[in-house]
């Protein structure tokens, strides 16, 4: 551990990372749902046309921006804390927040088994800090 960061600071850094990457995932998922089957779009307007359709979709742009912020926040966090803590924590908490966000925004179904798994993951992340 190089870390002289407090638990609170670490939580804040991880939160920014997890929130932005979840927002990115959900926005991009929603963009593709809005665009529809890419094969169909490609058949209709060619490869460049399909790429253009994706790249000018506002949700895709917003999602991409969130992903970029998320990447830089990962770099920032790694400059302060160990990778054996940051990688599992950021990755797995993103799974959990994706499950919650997908349920709320994409109206996906999240069953009890997944909530149990989410609790498992949260316990695991809490243990990483010690």
């Amino acid at each position, binding site marked *: *551990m*190089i870390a002289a960061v407090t638990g609170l600071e670490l939580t804040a850094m991880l939160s920014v990372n997890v929130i932005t990457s979840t927002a990115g*995932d*959900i926005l*991009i*998922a929603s963009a*593709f*749902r809005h665009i*529809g*089957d*890419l*094969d169909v779009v*490609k058949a209709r307007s060619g490869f460049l046309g399909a790429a253009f359709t994706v790249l000018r979709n506002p949700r895709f742009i917003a999602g991409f921006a969130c992903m970029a912020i998320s990447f*830089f926040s*990962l*770099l*920032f966090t*790694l*400059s*302060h804390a*160990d*990778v*054996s*803590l*940051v*990688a*599992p924590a950021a*990755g*797995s908490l993103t*799974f*959990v927040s*994706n*499950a919650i*966000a*997908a349920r709320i925004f*994409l*109206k*996906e*179904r999240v*069953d009890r*088994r*997944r909530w*149990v*798994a*989410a*609790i*498992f*993951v949260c*316990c*695991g*992340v*809490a*243990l*990483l*800090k*010690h």
Partner: protein
Amino acid sequence: MTPRRYIILAIVTLTSALGDTFLDVGMKQLGPVSLHHLSTLLVALKLPWVLAGIVLLIGFFASYLTALSWADVTFVLPATSFAYVVVALLSRFWLHEQITPARWLGIFFIVAGVGFVTRGPAYTEHASPDPDARLGSKVAVPITGTVAQHGAKQ
């Protein structure tokens, strides 16, 4: 499962773990970034270790999408969570980070949790009321499938 597919899953795991570890090596060279000098993060992009990490993570994303084009995310996900174990081993034996028993237990919990969720039934097919979206998340081009399933199946 063909040997080629096992190799792709191995690539998913290794690129993800190595990519994160390389980023870590680069950022440790740079030292702690202050909130008042966030532009330092752009300087980080010029570091060889960070660049190598980015290349590996692009490789991860490509192999992840490839895997998702023939396998369910429920199948690919355990492979990605296994990457945390690889990260732990790399940081222990290469970077000489201290990994306490509690942290090992934490990593075990996470892998177990992810493994547990991935053995459950996948509800994505009938999760969406919109038939086009349903089709999109199941058979469309990889990226559609990834993002939709990624959000849905966690």
